[in-house]
């Protein structure tokens, strides 16, 4: 018979320092995302020594970096909204369509009429005042987000199906609003949203910062973040623990719609027109990629807002880099896909496990009392 060894006291648990704020927001697995961004930047520096050069013209900052940041603003905002949706184990593929609708509403309300004045050029004419235009565009976007939310939370429709409906019809709605034309915007104050500067910095970045601040505050300073994660992990258990799963699910789709609406304003302001056909086309794919690159899993649960912002930045840097490198437009999408593929592979569980098992000695030691 085997001897009966005396039971020793279990080893004292190792003291684990609480994760820092930055780490908890950006997440733990952003090594490859950051590495990709660094690589892209190094490549750009190698091919273009002035990549980091920032000059001041007319009191505004100019340079490649500023340009990339400015251009990535819409995607960053959409990615943040989508992060919340994905955290609930949902998906919203209608964001591109809502971008088009938002821009179309704004352009249609401004009027799209060029009014010449004297010899100096155009007059700033709009049918409705700016605040009304913005409120209406955002209101419509919010309504479409709520529409998604109702279909999914009240009717129990699968998120991909529910938002697929809007992906198709939404673009139709945008074209109805623009009468199938591209509406050019001649109202200069509207240009400020996507092209303006405040304190020398592109105004769109202030919008990104504001959206990020509001969402971070809502999710990390209230219990909303915890509830969203709980729903994404196990909606039934979350409900039994008292989480208002339906209300919160509804709300995240509404917020996602609103974010897409804000992005739509920036996009239409940036190109000074609204194009029901092409505005925000395939944005949903870039946004999903940004969220995933940022470390939020499509299976829901833990989410990383600033990770998604980082993901959006990577995608925009990549796009700009590809253009700057003179890659033929028809190859662009393939190159983009390839880079995303590599980063996703590196982030996959299998590869992570391989990297972990490469250092088994260290782990075993960590378990020894």
């Amino acid at each position, binding site marked *: *018979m*085997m*001897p*009966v*060894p005396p*039971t020793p006291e*279990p*080893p004292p*648990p*190792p*003291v*684990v320092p*609480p*994760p820092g704020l930055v780490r908890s927001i950006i997440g733990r697995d952003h090594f490859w995302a950051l590495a990709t961004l660094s690589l892209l930047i190094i490549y750009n520096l190698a091919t273009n020594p002035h990549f980091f050069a920032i000059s001041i013209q007319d009191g505004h900052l100019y340079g490649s970096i500023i340009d990339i940041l400015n251009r990535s603003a819409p995607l960053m905002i959409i990615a943040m909204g989508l992060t919340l949706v994905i955290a609930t184990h949902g998906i919203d593929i209608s964001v591109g369509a809502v971008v088009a609708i938002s821009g179309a509403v704004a352009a249609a309300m401004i009027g799209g009429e060029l009014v010449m004045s004297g010899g100096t050029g155009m007059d700033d004419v709009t049918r409705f005042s700016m605040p009304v235009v913005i409120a209406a565009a955002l209101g419509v976007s919010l309504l479409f987000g709520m529409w998604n939310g109702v279909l999914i939370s009240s009717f129990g429709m699968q998120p991909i199906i529910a938002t697929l409906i809007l992906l198709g019809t939404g673009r139709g709605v945008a074209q109805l609003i623009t009468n199938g034309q591209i509406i050019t915007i001649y109202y200069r104050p509207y240009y400020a949203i996507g092209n303006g500067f405040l304190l020398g910095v592109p105004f769109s970045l202030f919008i990104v910062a504001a959206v990020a601040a509001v969402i971070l505050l809502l999710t990390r*300073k*209230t*219990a*909303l973040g*915890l*509830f969203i*994660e*709980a729903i994404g*992990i*196990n909606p*039934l*258990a*979350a*409900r*039994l*623990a*008292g*989480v*208002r799963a339906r209300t919160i699910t509804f709300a995240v789709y509404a917020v996602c719609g609103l974010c897409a609406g804000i992005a739509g304003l920036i996009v239409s302001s940036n190109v000074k027109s609204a194009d029901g056909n092409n505005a925000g086309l395939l944005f949903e794919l870039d946004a999903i990629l940004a969220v995933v690159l940022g470390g939020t899993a499509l299976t829901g*649960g*833990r989410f990383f807002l600033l990770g998604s912002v980082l993901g959006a930045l990577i995608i925009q840097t990549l796009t700009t880099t590809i253009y700057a490198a003179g890659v033929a437009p028809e190859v662009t999408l393939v190159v983009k896909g390839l880079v995303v593929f590599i980063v996703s592979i590196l982030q996959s569980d299998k590869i992570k496990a391989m990297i972990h098992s490469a250092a088994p000695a260290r*782990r*075993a030691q*960590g*378990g*020894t*009392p």
Partner: protein
Amino acid sequence: MTDPAPVLEMRGITKYFPGVRALSAVDFRLLPGEVHSLMGQNGAGKSTLVKVLTGVVTPDAGQLLLDGQDIRPQGPLEAQRLGISTVFQEVNLCTNLSVAENILLGRGGTSTVAIRWRELRRQAVALLAELNIHIDVTAPLASYPLAIQQMVAIARALTSETRGGNAIRTRLLVLDEPTSSLADDEVKMLFSVIRRLKAQGIAILFISHFLDQAFEISDRFTVLRNGQLVGEYPVAQLSRMDLIVKMVGKEIAETAPDRASRTAAADAPAAVPVVQARGLGKTGSVTGLDLAVAPGQAIGVAGLLGSGRTETARLLFGIDKADHGTLEIEGKPVRFSSPLDAIVHGMGFCPEDRKHEGILAELSIRENIIIALQCKRGIFRSLSRARQDEIARSYIKLLGIKAPDADVPISKLSGGNQQKVLLARWLATDPKMLILDEPTRGIDVGAKIEIMAEVMALCDNGMAVVFSSSEMDEILRYSDRVVVLRDRAKVGEMAGHDADEQKVFQIIAGGSP
């Protein structure tokens, strides 16, 4: 007495997980043609040992010998090629495929390009016949009860992969909690299959929380505690009590605090019941339920599977909306339309299906504990991190939850510890009444007693408890009053000290009390 040469020997198996020593120098051996039960509480290291055996986990030290040969399986597939097959607790099959497909797909034998369906079906029928199962193998697996699905899983485990046409004989079958979702007669069926396999010389490693079953089917026990080997014993030499003492490691009497002997709480009509249901019910669920629960009273809900125990809990907690009858909390009529309503009114509920309805697997212990309290407070009255840590720490200590720290995902804990976390979730809300649906299911004996003792202590402090259990012992031991359900209706109620097994069974069976 000399034992035959063991099929399997594990020597000095040691495994560390971050912060926990899961196994330290454990020896284990398995003889041909024996049923050997691995016994121990949750967290004793049973599953880790099985994972080492099946190659899911690589040990940090130690040796595995199969027929005296050193082996190092790198995964379940490789273990299977060596003749070590496993059937896990939950059936890991594709229930939408046919029985034959489930048994044989991916198992080779279909060497040509196309699958030879006729041959496949013939083989499946033959394999199941060996287990004395005779069913239509073309029907989807989902159309059969869980017990049959389990047999199909065993049949699949026995048909090892063929390589170059040579079938590999299964030498060793691991059955990890195979009976946890089976009814009594289904367990009998499983046991007859196990005996057949045993007669064929297959060594069987059996793991079950049910002591009776382990005693019935096993030849030998190996007992683990806290990752250490306690010893190996022939079943005949061990009494039930001996085994429990070895598993738990302290002299616990199998009789925990017995409420039934007290009469005060059972009979004294309280001034205002915490919960009073009058004719409460929902069409298609439990109907016409009358129930009064006084503060400090424990109500045991007895009844067979499907008698409406879970439905009663769901109705009281607002998961299912009642469509008739009334519910009063402390004398005030209420109408719950969601669990949150019930929580706000001071109720808590531990569901039977811990994994799917209870735990939030990827969230930390801390988050799992504070979430109900946070819901009760509302979204904007957020608990500070310091306060969360304090709550989590205090309950981890109070309930003796075994975890390296409060920020470990709850999924890393053993079943008993998960249940303690769920109990902590509700205790943190300071409930007036706690509803527990099968609180001790799938939990080892030590944790069972700890959990019920904690619940009873709270009950003595004025919390009302409604709990259901399929173990009559528990109902009789812990109830001030016993409520009996049959066919989704209440058919009897009596004071705990009046109740005995026979009376309750009589009511369940339809006789008058």
